[in-house]
């Protein structure tokens, strides 16, 4: 039997990971935190304590809040491994990592997956062109490189983060050419029934209104309920065209920033064999978890946005619940104390999550919008079009995994992160009404890049016999 290297391995040093690790470490659990970036903070608090910005307040108070979280984390009694990517995880707690260029393996008794979310892919004709980026990319450039667009960009899509980016750009003195918002009107009415609950998180609502009024005051052209987006240009993006209020529009721009919500990054949990299910309200797959965040694989937990989109504050709280449970199961925290500590965490978490049903509903993507036109590239890596996948679906191809085998869609380096959702939609909408819902791709290692040489040279430093 191999002795585990750690009692707890936390993957991801964003708010959920930092919280989970500290809660466990402070109760005597031997913890390591692995993170791909150079500094803790995840994406939401990226570079918050190592900012290249002269004036960090341009990003807003919520971002600044992360600074103290990162600073306490840095002083916690745990092993923090930066620049470390996890390319392999299985249900036995064996982890393959590339640690500053060297492959090695670790074994953990418990794993908390806190790897956060990714942006929901927003495919449309031309989305692959040079000069099209995500809103998240814009934020990362600001946070980690103090860079902003030097020509007025167009922001397109839907969701709070799109507006947040616009607001941050305005504060940084960036002119915005236009906001092309694709949020659909019919979603609004169903969203209103969640409004009363959202009042419990009125601070979020208020912040939202502030963003909107700041953007309005700046008199940025704001197109609503836009549809039929298409990006034009040869070697580089030249323009975006779309339909709005029954009229065709075209805006010349070299930079387009897209956003259509965020979805949990499921790869690690799926690779470890954790059960998952489709969340219709959030329109994404979620790992099935108990109240503490433990998955169907004993000892494997998911916390934060990786478990379900809830935002940074909810992530910080959810991470604590997982940390408490791990400590408890290791015999380092009595049940009663666990429950007492968990209670206040849960009520705070519930308050932060109160806004979600309203937001999820308001920004819900309509059925007709989930499937882009035929000429769209479904798979950017292998350049497989929606048309090709639709044809297979009509021929009775059994699902995304068969389609992947037949077309190479999902076999490129992004491992299906950007094409999986599109593929699932195509196969979920079969002509035959009695078809069961399509699943998602089988996730295969490596989850992050690793070379043959790294694998061959990787010394198993921790295992004997």
């Amino acid at each position: 039997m191999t002795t585990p290297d750690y009692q707890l391995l936390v993957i991801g040093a964003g708010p959920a990971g930092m919280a989970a690790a500290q809660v466990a470490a402070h109760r005597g659990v031997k913890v390591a935190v692995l993170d791909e970036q150079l500094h803790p903070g995840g994406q939401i608090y990226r570079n918050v304590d190592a900012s290249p910005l002269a004036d960090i307040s341009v990003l807003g108070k919520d971002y600044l809040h992360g600074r103290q979280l990162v600073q306490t984390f840095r002083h916690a009694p745990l092993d923090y491994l930066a620049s470390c990517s996890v390319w392999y995880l299985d249900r036995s707690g064996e982890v393959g990592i590339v640690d500053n260029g060297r492959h090695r393996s670790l074994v953990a008794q418990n794993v908390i997956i806190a790897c956060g979310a990714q942006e929901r892919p927003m495919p449309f004709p031309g989305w692959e062109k040079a000069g099209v980026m995500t809103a998240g990319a814009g934020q990362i450039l600001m946070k980690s490189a103090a860079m902003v667009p030097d020509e007025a960009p167009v922001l397109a899509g839907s969701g709070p983060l799109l507006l947040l980016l616009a607001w941050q750009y305005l504060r940084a003195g960036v002119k915005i050419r236009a906001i092309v918002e694709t949020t659909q009107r019919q979603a609004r009415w169903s969203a209103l029934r969640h409004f009363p609950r959202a009042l419990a998180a009125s601070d979020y609502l208020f912040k939202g209104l502030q963003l909107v009024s700041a953007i309005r005051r700046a008199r940025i052209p704001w197109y609503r309920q836009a549809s039929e987006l298409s990006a034009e240009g040869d070697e580089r993006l030249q323009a975006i065209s779309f339909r709005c209020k029954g009229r065709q529009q075209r805006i010349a721009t070299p930079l387009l920033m897209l956003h259509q919500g965020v979805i949990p990054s499921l790869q690690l949990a799926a690779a470890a064999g954790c059960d998952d299910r489709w969340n219709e309200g959030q329109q994404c797959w979620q790992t099935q978890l108990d109240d503490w965040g433990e998955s169907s694989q004993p000892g494997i937990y998911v916390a934060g946005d990786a478990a379900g989109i809830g935002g940074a504050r909810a992530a910080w709280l959810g991470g604590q619940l997982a940390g408490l449970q791990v400590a408890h199961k290791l015999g380092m925290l009595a049940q009663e104390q666990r429950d007492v500590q968990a209670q206040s965490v849960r009520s705070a978490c519930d308050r932060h999550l109160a806004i979600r049903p309203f937001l999820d509903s308001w920004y819900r993507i309509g059925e007709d919008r989930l499937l882009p036109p035929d000429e769209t590239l479904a798979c950017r890596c292998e350049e497989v079009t929606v048309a090709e996948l639709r044809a297979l679906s009509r021929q009775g191809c059994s699902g995304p995994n068969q389609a992947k085998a037949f077309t190479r869609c999902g076999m490129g380096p992004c491992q299906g992160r950007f094409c999986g959702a599109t593929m699932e939609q195509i196969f979920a909408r079969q002509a035959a009404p009695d078809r069961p819902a399509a699943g998602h791709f089988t996730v295969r290692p490596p989850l992050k890049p690793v070379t043959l040489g790294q694998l061959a040279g990787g010394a198993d430093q921790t295992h004997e016999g």
Partner: protein
Amino acid sequence: MFRLLGEASQQVLVELDGVEVSVPAGVSVAAALLYLGRIPTRHSPVTGAARAPFCMMGACFECVLEIDGVSERACQRQVEAGMQLRLQLCGDGEAL
């Protein structure tokens, strides 16, 4: 394409397709290319279509280029003085 907010604290010299260029220190290689406006950064292996950094968080692999002889995601590496960068472009290697 992208500019710095305020002054760069430092600059470093790297080699891009054999030509020495000055980029801000402490940023990713992908950010440095966007700063220089050097897009597209690659042509896709299947159809030769022009691509450039997209997600900046290591998920999309659009920003893959040759860094000191090894093909890697440019958004996951920080610039270092003397780094040799080669874009994965078709033809004579000119981006535009």
